[in-house]
């Protein structure tokens, strides 16, 4: 009816569920559905490794933190109950622990992926809580139970749980970058070791003591329990020493610890080998499981030996890359394979309702096991060998294929069992609690919604300090670093705290150089033209990097990575995401404007036919993208800075209605083009009020208008200016007419001390044409060959004038401040229209050939800081 060797807890023990009530089966079913789901996600993440930089971390943790952890929690409880002959723990609390572990895993994974340290922290806390509860339960059931001769095996699970708690805490520190440059490598290594060798390695070893003889179909050796105790002392103790040593950066302790661990593993393997020899004529219960488990154990041994070798041979700071590949190998070779081997045997045992069903399920899982085994192990071997890239990729593909080939029948088995359970008269659903499921579903949907709502980076309105500013949103920055002759360019990189920094290091010098980051990764010696990428992870403290060749560092071949101090005063209003050029504090003008941005149309609309122009101008605050990727709150007339351009002829009347839509301050307006008593028309009106400003443009010129409210430096500095173009009588027709209002740009919260200081010191962040830095460089003005183009220019300031120059052409007409300085009939030409603050005029030029003609403020500081545009001349 029920063979003796069916349940691994053989040897005088009552198996936990002989009759397997549907509730228990459904619980096992759910747990394994979770495991399978995590494994599928891990495979998907692994396949996306080329495109997503975080995919590798995701793949590793989806599998280990998701699939493997769930399996270990479920099975260690199951086996602990079995070996201790204990009563089953409360089902609801078991479920709660499982949910807690999974929720914690989801939280950690999402937190790292979406870069939300709060979520990562919450997830780690949840994991620690759930696993501690798991540990407490494991200890308690031992105390209450009679215990069997295999009771020492339960200690493996307890030690593993303790390891997990330590590992989760270490992971938390590493993931949030709190370790600081001195310790991060050591803590990361400690995390990897305690998790792989402790949380996963110890339960594997412990369970194998029981599972190995079971799948082989032989009796357990007499001294198994005694040996198990000894092995645990060696492995557990060794691991503790090793982890402490790694965390403290003390290599000898790490070597000793891993050596002890290896000794323990060796002892266990010796027993397993001897057990094989006792298999005589009887075939193994499950050769598939046996061989898979054997292969997994082989990789464990190999992994531990290689790890020991690395620790002996290399200093800790250089181990990171090698550990990375070792983790990959162990992940597939040990963890995935041990899971496969165990599940081939155990899944039918727990899911089937009777011996015939069990055999059927096992047959499904074992189908094609031999080729699958070979493919998987070949793949892992290819991954392990230090061969060129494509070999490793092939290995990964093979391993992935084998994994998928196992997942498919597992999913089939789970579906089949699920259907059987639902058909069973005792509805497994009776144990489900609708309130719990409903709350969980609602919470998941809400969390997803909040994540999507917050996605997309900095929302508009960056100048207004957003309410609860959480931790700085770390971005990934890749900086191209060039190794030149005894110099590193750039010599300084400034990053915001927490930024994930990647250095793309290229050697452009004939001599070989390398780059080593202080307490971090290093490139090998690079020949001329070679490139390497270094991943520094989140940068939380200042670090240095240098070339390790003798004398090079002393000669000055160093790179400083500096963490920007809390630049709240300086960068508020930047939108928080400007990547400052290494040397300047201004906006990054080489970046791209946001998607969908359009430059301001610089065409001068023809003067309306009427002689009375009625205009309504609204004074308000508007958020404008004033430089690539930089949004700033501007004070505007008509929603733009500069405000709308008015155009008319001599003698025209302008009736301007000013409406103050600004709820927080008063504004006024001053039109230079009109002559009238300022008392009433240029007065300041309160929010919501309006005034009518009527003036007659009696004289021609390019006139400035601006806000007349004190302090005018700030009102103008924040964008309240514009142009009024009054054509001189008899103005010749031209093919194109553009209006460019030049001004300074001051970033920051308008009215803040920092910003006003910049205005006072005449230290703007950029000089601009028509309000936006470099906008016509990104979206050039257009002209055709041989067309005559007129540029109206008004220098709005508030402090600087302009030396307007167009590269590649000569002005044959210059009109400045009401008079022609130069007309086409004269032999001379002009290169610059020089305007003092608030002056205006126009120049005309023709373009001889097709090409790109830049126009600039020829004060080069201004030109290189945004007063730069382009005319694209085509045939």
């Amino acid at each position: 009816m029920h063979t003796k060797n069916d349940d691994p807890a053989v040897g005088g023990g009552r198996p936990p569920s002989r009759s397997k009530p549907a509730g228990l089966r459904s619980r096992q079913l759910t747990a394994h559905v979770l495991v399978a789901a995590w494994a599928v996600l891990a495979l998907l993440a692994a396949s996306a490794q080329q495109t997503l930089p975080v995919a590798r971390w995701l793949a590793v943790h989806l599998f280990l933190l998701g699939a493997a952890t769930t399996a270990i929690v479920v099975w260690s409880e199951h086996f602990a109950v079995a070996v201790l002959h204990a009563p089953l723990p409360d089902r609801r609390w078991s479920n709660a622990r499982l949910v807690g572990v999974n929720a914690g895993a989801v939280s950690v994974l999402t937190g790292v992926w979406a870069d939300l340290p709060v979520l990562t922290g919450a997830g780690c806390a949840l994991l620690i809580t759930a696993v501690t509860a798991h540990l407490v339960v494991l200890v308690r059931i031992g105390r209450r139970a009679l215990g069997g001769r295999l009771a020492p095996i339960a200690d493996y699970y307890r030690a593993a749980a303790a390891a997990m708690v330590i590992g989760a805490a270490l992971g938390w520190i590493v993931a949030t970058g709190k370790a600081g440059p001195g310790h991060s490598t050591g803590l990361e290594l400690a995390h990897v070791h305690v998790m792989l060798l402790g949380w996963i390695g110890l339960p594997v070893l412990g369970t194998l003591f029981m599972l190995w003889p079971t799948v082989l179909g032989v009796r357990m050796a007499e001294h198994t329990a005694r040996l198990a105790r000894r092995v645990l002392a060696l492995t557990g103790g060794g691991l503790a020493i090793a982890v402490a040593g790694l965390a403290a950066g003390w290599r000898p302790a790490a070597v000793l610890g891993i050596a002890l661990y290896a000794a323990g593993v060796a002892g266990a393997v010796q027993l397993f080998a001897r057990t094989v020899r006792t298999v005589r004529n009887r075939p193994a219960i499950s050769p598939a499981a046996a061989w898979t488990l054997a292969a997994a154990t082989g990789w464990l041994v190999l992994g531990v030996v290689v790890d020991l070798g690395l620790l002996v041979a290399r200093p800790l700071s250089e181990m990171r890359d090698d550990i990375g590949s070792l983790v990959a190998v162990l992940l597939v070779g040990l963890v995935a394979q041990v899971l496969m081997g165990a599940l081939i045997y155990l899944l039918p045992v727990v899911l089937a309702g009777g011996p015939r069903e069990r055999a059927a399920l096992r047959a499904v899982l074992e189908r094609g096991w031999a080729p699958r085994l070979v493919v998987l192990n070949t793949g892992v071997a290819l991954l392990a060998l230090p061969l060129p890239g494509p070999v490793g990729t092939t290995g990964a593909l093979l391993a992935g294929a084998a994994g998928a080939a196992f997942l498919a029948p597992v999913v089939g088995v789970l579906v089949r069992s699920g259907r059987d359970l639902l058909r069973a008269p005792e509805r497994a659903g009776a144990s489900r609690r609708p309130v719990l499921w409903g709350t969980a579903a609602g919470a998941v949907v809400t969390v997803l919604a909040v994540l999507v709502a917050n996605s997309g980076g900095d929302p508009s309105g960056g100048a207004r300090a957003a309410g609860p500013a959480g931790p700085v949103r770390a971005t990934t920055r890749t900086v191209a670093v060039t190794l030149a002759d005894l110099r590193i360019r750039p010599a300084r990189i400034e990053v915001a705290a927490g930024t994930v920094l990647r250095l793309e290091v290229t050697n452009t010098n004939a001599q070989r150089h390398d780059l080593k980051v202080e307490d971090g990764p290093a490139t090998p010696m690079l020949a001329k033209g070679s490139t390497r990428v270094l991943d520094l992870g989140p940068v939380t403290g200042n670090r240095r990097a240098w070339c390790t060749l003798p004398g090079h560092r002393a000669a000055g071949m160093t790179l400083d990575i500096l963490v920007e101090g809390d630049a709240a005063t300086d960068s508020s209003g930047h939108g928080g995401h400007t990547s400052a050029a290494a040397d300047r504090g201004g906006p990054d003008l080489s970046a791209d404007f946001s998607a969908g941005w359009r430059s301001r149309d610089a065409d001068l609309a023809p003067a309306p036919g009427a002689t009375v122009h009625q205009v309504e101008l609204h004074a308000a605050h508007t958020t404008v993208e004033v430089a690539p990727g930089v949004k700033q709150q501007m004070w505007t007339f008509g929603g733009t800075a500069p405000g709308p351009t008015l155009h008319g002829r001599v003698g025209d009347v302008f009736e301007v209605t000013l409406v103050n839509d600004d709820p927080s301050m008063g504004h006024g307006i001053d039109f230079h083009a009109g002559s009238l008593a300022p008392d009433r028309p240029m007065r300041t009106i309160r929010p919501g009020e309006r005034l009518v400003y009527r003036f007659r443009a009696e004289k021609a010129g390019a006139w400035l208008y601006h806000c007349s409210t004190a302090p005018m430096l700030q009102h103008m500095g924040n964008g309240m200016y514009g142009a009024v173009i009054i054509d001189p009588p008899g103005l010749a027709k031209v093919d194109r007419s553009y209006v460019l209002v030049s001004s300074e740009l001051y970033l920051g919260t308008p009215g803040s001390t920092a910003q006003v200081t910049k205005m006072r010191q005449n230290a703007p962040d950029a000089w601009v044409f028509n309000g936006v830095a470099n906008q016509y460089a990104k979206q050039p003005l257009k002209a055709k060959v041989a067309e005559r183009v007129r540029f109206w220019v008004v220098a709005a300031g508030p402090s600087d004038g302009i030396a307007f120059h167009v590269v590649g052409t000569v002005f044959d007409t210059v009109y400045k401040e009401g008079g022609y300085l130069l007309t086409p009939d004269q032999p001379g030409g002009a290169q610059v229209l020089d305007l003092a603050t608030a002056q205006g005029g126009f120049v005309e030029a023709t373009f001889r050939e097709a090409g790109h003609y830049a126009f600039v403020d020829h004060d080069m500081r201004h030109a290189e800081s945004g007063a730069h545009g382009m005319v694209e001349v085509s045939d």
Partner: protein
Amino acid sequence: MDTVGWWSLVRFAHVAGAALWVGGQLALSLVVLPLARRLLDPEAKDRFTAAAGRRFGMLTGAVFLPVQLATGWAMAWHKGVTWASLAEPGYGRTLTTKLALFVVVMLAAAGHGIAHAKGRVELARALAVVSLVGSFGVVLLATALPAT
């Protein structure tokens, strides 16, 4: 400009409607239904809860939903929301997810009614909880939006 102006009244109607919806659900789940289960005979309890649910559902459909939709639409129009701006990060996306979550809540509420009609009590209860938790999520996102 008055502080209690027309648009603040629109906002008031929207918030009051939300308060009634969430408050009504809470009152039912935390006060009315537990007492009904405890104090009434099973048959009377079934009739009472069915009637209560139907009445609440009717109020939702006839009063709550139109008022929320109308006032919500008006506020969005007043704020200058366009279809394109709904995808933009910040206000647009928050509003979009709030709307999506609201749809989920309404579907869950409708599903709750249907499940009860079909006699699937547990599913109905789960959906009711989903609706309640989701409603809190909607309020969470709404409070994240700046006042219109």
